[in-house]
């Protein structure tokens, strides 16, 4: 029970980070990135391939994250331009369908070229006991990286000029323009950031289990669930929902069984939408 709880928190922090990337892009542009998991796994596969050539882990990981970020960044600068010219429902629908298409392309590409390529980062060292629960070094390192990243993100959004600029565009794009913020730049930046975060989640997940082409859809779905429960567009909501759902995930697979777990998470998302579409911490839609 205690270990399931702790496991859930570790997992949940990573879920949260996965959701943040999705929620940021949606809040900013109304584009629901249904290729989020694919982009994450793409990064992990790149890391695995590079490490296969003998490159040390750290530069390989940095390169993988760069690829994940670059793919989304490139999408913002190309295909998404068409989406930004639309308004309202049309924009949302077009963004969602285009990203679905992009997701299939990446999925197909991975299944075609690298069907069995998997990233599994084995972190050496003996398990360490925390609160009476023995945790593997891999999962501790993964949590540490995730927590640090989360804190850096919070600091970035609160304390830096660019971070505040991002939030300003999410809340009132015209107001942001009048303050001298360039929304197009913010969008490109956030797409890149979201890609890097997605890649990072795939990399940290690989510290506790292998990540490959068959993880894409489940990553996307998790990101979606987390973002919805936290409130689309809310960064802190995504983290809260991530931890909450991580705990629900571990507890239900501990007590009930694995196939029910995903269903429970999905039902959580569906119920959130039906009960309070703005999510835990989201603002009511305007």
């Amino acid at each position: 029970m205690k270990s399931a709880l702790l496991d859930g928190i570790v997992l949940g922090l990573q879920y949260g980070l996965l959701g943040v990337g999705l929620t940021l892009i949606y809040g900013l542009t109304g584009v629901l990135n249904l290729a989020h998991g694919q982009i994450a796994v793409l990064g992990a596969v790149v890391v695995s391939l590079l490490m296969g050539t003998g490159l040390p882990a750290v530069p390989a990981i940095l390169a993988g994250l760069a690829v994940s970020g670059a793919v989304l960044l490139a999408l913002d600068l190309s295909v998404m331009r068409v989406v930004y010219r639309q308004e309202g429902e049309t924009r949302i629908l077009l963004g969602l369908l285009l990203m679905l298409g992009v997701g299939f392309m990446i999925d197909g590409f991975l299944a075609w070229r690298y069907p069995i390529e998997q990233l599994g980062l084995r972190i050496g060292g003996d398990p360490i006991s925390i609160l009476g629960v023995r945790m593997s070094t891999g999962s501790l390192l993964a949590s540490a990286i995730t927590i640090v990243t989360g804190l850096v993100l919070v600091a970035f959004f609160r304390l830096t000029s660019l971070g505040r600029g991002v939030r300003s565009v999410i809340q009132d794009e015209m107001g942001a323009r009048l303050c001298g913020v360039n929304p197009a730049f913010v969008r490109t930046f956030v797409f890149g950031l979201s890609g890097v975060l997605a890649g990072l989640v795939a990399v940290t997940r690989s510290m506790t289990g292998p990540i490959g082409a068959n993880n894409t859809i489940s990553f996307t779905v998790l990101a979606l669930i987390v973002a919805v429960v936290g409130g689309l567009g809310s960064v802190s909501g995504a983290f809260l929902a991530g931890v909450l759902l991580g705990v629900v995930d571990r507890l239900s697979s501990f007590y009930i069984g694995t196939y029910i777990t995903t269903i429970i998470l999905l039902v959580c998302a569906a119920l959130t939408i039906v009960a309070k579409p703005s999510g835990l911490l989201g603002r009511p839609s305007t």
Partner: protein
Amino acid sequence: MREPVVVSGAILSVAGLSAGYVGEDVIYDIGFEVDEGEAVTIIGSNGAGKSTLFRAIMSMLTPSAGTVRFDGSDITGLATHRIARLGLAYVPAERHLFPQMSVTENLLLGAFPDRPDPAIQDSVFDVFPRLAERKTQDAGTLSGGEQQMLAVGRALMSKPSLLLLDEPTTGLAPLLAAEAYKALARLRDDGLTLVVAEQQVPLALELASRGYVIDHGRFGLSGPSEELAGNPEVQRAYLGVA
């Protein structure tokens, strides 16, 4: 093009400006100049084209004709955020604050992308002490009057050389409106160049040294404030004098 374009000392000069929405102009052939340190008002009723004029100046919509020069350079069609960074600040009637950010954060964004100047923030709090009391409160929870103060304060944070204000008294009770104008007068006295679009004509004419009347998208009367205040047409249309 009533006036020939001359390179003058004017900080803002608008010439032959026409603009509108979906192919239909709302303002036609607008031309005027504002000198440094001046307070100018543009008076007109609802829908006369005041907001459209400001939006066209700020490139929030693309003019169909005409030019806008600011501080000696042509800014027609320049991206809105670039215009803002040049020191032309605009406070729209809808304010466009960031509702889920604190008062302080809203002010800090006013200085974007530069590092906010604490001295300027202090001077904003000096003009609007209410904002200092509400520093940590989210902008969305402020009252209408406080939101207006914040909108002006945020614009001031960029050290603008010209401030455009669209109906700063929208939604304010008469007492608060008078108070808002007192603050604006103080800014004017400190040397800030102001252009105020207003329906509350008495307040605006008191603040500004001269004004223009806009009606159905065209400039009509113009002149020193006292002259406009004494004009029977203005009195009948905007001052409620029978």
